[in-house]
């Protein structure tokens, strides 16, 4: 099987390489003087993260184009090099090695949970900062920070677990659920943190069912869930199992409400099960507070560039922020090495210093000799000592009758208790 996977990888690699070149071309056209600064994007363009990765790639393109339009980093143009990690651990190792040894990037942005955990040693040994923009794993809760070369710009699962629990209990007053979890690392971690928080805050999990991945029929599991007669089912499952489960539940006449994790929050899921069946499913996602200038600025620029609004829960803003913060760290240091980024990333993103929401503003403030605090499109982006950020607000999304994920309410989650 290894041989097979290798062929696959090589094919992907060639494809992504070509895409990368094509994407990099316009930024070269805008080139300023000097050797380009290379930044790597390492995401799961194929595999489990496939549905989300193109959005992260877009955000990276937007950030790099913006930086180049504003004169580049230290007067040098920036080149974005995108690499596929197949959403796997070994794909991440291979991709990182290629980005660093062959392309010579000074920073790697984007690896998801499993990939970034695998890269912890690599980042430190090679002095290359690795910044996750969508990895929720609890393993990063106290693994990162200055000196470790590991950061992340999205919230941890342990915080999301609290968010799920608080939203269920406070917003829709649901204190009993049946928990359905697919037997995968990511979904299990999400379910575990939720369960802990929910039970601590007064909720009851009446039954817990584990789904084996990749089955065509989940009929016996459905019968098992039905025996608990739930009002609401909490689904911590991947896309394909989720579709089969929800579809078959509808066919058997079970009218449950669904509360889902980020895995199912996509138009693909609604489309696959049918709008009528998916209607009412809810999912809370991290969000910038309503009307935040940095979010609106980013959202408008994204829409102008790609013809669609960035979607809540798709981590575009988190990825954009990572690129801008790294660029500002390089500016502040006066050099573009991985060490310079590691030493300055927490400094330029605050708290303390002049608040800036764009690369251009940040550079101007730095030139004027001021300390800066980059306020991200995704949130305040104030890294703690372990390289983690908190999320200012939570947006509760619900599938409408015609199958759109719509915002029901935005709740200030900055005061939610830690798990």
């Amino acid at each position, binding site marked *: 099987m290894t041989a097979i996977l290798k062929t696959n990888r090589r094919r992907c690699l060639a494809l992504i390489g070509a895409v990368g070149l094509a994407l990099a071309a316009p930024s070269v056209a805008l080139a300023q003087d000097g050797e380009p600064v290379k930044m790597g994007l390492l995401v799961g363009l194929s595999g489990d993260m496939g549905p989300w990765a193109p959005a992260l790639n877009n955000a990276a393109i937007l950030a790099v184009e913006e930086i180049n339009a504003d004169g580049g980093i230290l007067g040098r143009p920036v080149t974005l090099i995108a690499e596929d990690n197949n959403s796997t651990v070994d794909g991440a190792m291979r991709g990182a090695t290629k980005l660093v040894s062959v392309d010579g990037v000074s920073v790697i942005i984007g690896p998801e949970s499993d990939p970034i955990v695998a890269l912890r040693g690599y980042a430190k040994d090679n002095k290359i900062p690795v910044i996750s923009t969508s990895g929720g794993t609890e393993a990063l809760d106290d693994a990162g920070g200055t000196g470790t070369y590991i950061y992340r710009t999205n919230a941890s699962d342990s915080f999301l677990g609290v968010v799920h629990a608080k939203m269920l209990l406070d917003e829709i007053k649901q204190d009993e659920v049946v928990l359905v979890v697919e037997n995968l690392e990511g979904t299990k971690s999400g379910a575990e943190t939720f369960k802990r928080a929910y039970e601590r805050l007064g909720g009851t999990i009446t039954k817990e069912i584990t789904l084996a991945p990749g089955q*065509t029929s989940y009929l016996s599991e459905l019968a098992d869930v039905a025996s608990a007669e739930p009002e609401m089912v909490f689904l911590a499952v991947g896309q394909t199992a989720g579709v089969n489960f929800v579809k*078959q539940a509808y*066919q058997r006449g079970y009218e449950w409400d669904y509360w889902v994790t980020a895995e199912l929050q996509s138009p693909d899921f609604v489309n696959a099960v049918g709008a009528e069946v998916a209607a009412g499913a809810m999912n809370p996602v991290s969000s910038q507070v309503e009307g935040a200038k940095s979010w609106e600025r980013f959202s408008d620029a994204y829409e102008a560039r790609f013809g669609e609004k960035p979607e809540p829960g798709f981590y575009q803003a988190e990825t954009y922020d990572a690129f801008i913060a790294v660029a500002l760290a390089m500016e502040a240091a006066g050099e573009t090495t991985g060490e310079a980024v590691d030493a300055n990333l927490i400094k330029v993103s605050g708290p303390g210093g002049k608040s800036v929401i764009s690369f251009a503003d940040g550079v101007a403030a730095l030139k004027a000799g001021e300390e800066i605090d980059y306020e991200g499109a995704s949130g305040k982006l104030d890294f703690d000592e372990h390289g983690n950020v908190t999320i200012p607000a939570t947006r509760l999304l619900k599938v409408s009758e015609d199958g759109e994920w719509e915002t029901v309410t935005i709740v200030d989650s900055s005061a939610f208790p830690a798990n």
Partner: protein
Amino acid sequence: MDIITFGLISASVILLSSVGFALIVQVEGFLNIAHGQMLLLGAYSGLFLSNLGLHIIPASIGAAIFCGLVGALFYGLLFRPVKAKGVLVLLFTSVGAAYVIYGVVGAIAGKRMLAFDLPLVRAMKLFGQPFMTIYELAIVIVAIAVALCLHLFLAYTPAGKSIRAVADNEDLARARGIDPLRTSYLVWFVASALGGLAGVFLGIMGSLHLSMGWQQIIIILATTVLGGIGSLYGVMLAAFVIAFGIEIGLIFVPASYRSGLAFLIIVVVLLVKPQGLQALWGGGRDRTH
């Protein structure tokens, strides 16, 4: 009651996916890994046809015929030229072919999950209990019909007899005036068309995603091993043994052990009957591969 319903549905899916694979094992004597991707191709070409406005029934027939033709084409272009080099070369060629199909489908259809746009249905009631949806009933009927037709075809038609003759001893069949080439094309067409049809059903029951072929080939391989490599009837029986074994086993163990149960059944059967289920009626004694 539930166990019978659930088992029947699972068994039909497994049977329909595996039977084409088993046919090629029997006649060509190698494990055609590309068969899993035929399911993928069938599902996506069925979706393509149905998005063109075709009703789901002609769309699935169209997809099956298309897959059959692709299978025959693959045989002519890829497998026949390397057949003389032995089963290992054939096996690796099929792995390559699998990636070709996977890559092309992925490049055209994209990596996102897709689904057939079919009207929502509820399960029909039997004695007041939800029984099966019309789609599930269709797959059960088709699977049983396929098994039956295949048996009648192999046992009673000249073309079927020639398939069995070629599978048993190609040289002798040739000496008796059977054209092995035509027989092989026929086998590849039928096997691939059945794979394509299974893919459409998988897509209808759940969703269409690029890894569905790889997921299914593992189940197909397991079923084939359990049935006894090279035995068509063994595989048909194995589909039911695995499906019902799992459903009955789930009474005693949590559902997360589904795959574990399947392999437990296989291990136990192979410990008792190393030739697989076909040993029950004396098959598999003279097999050399």
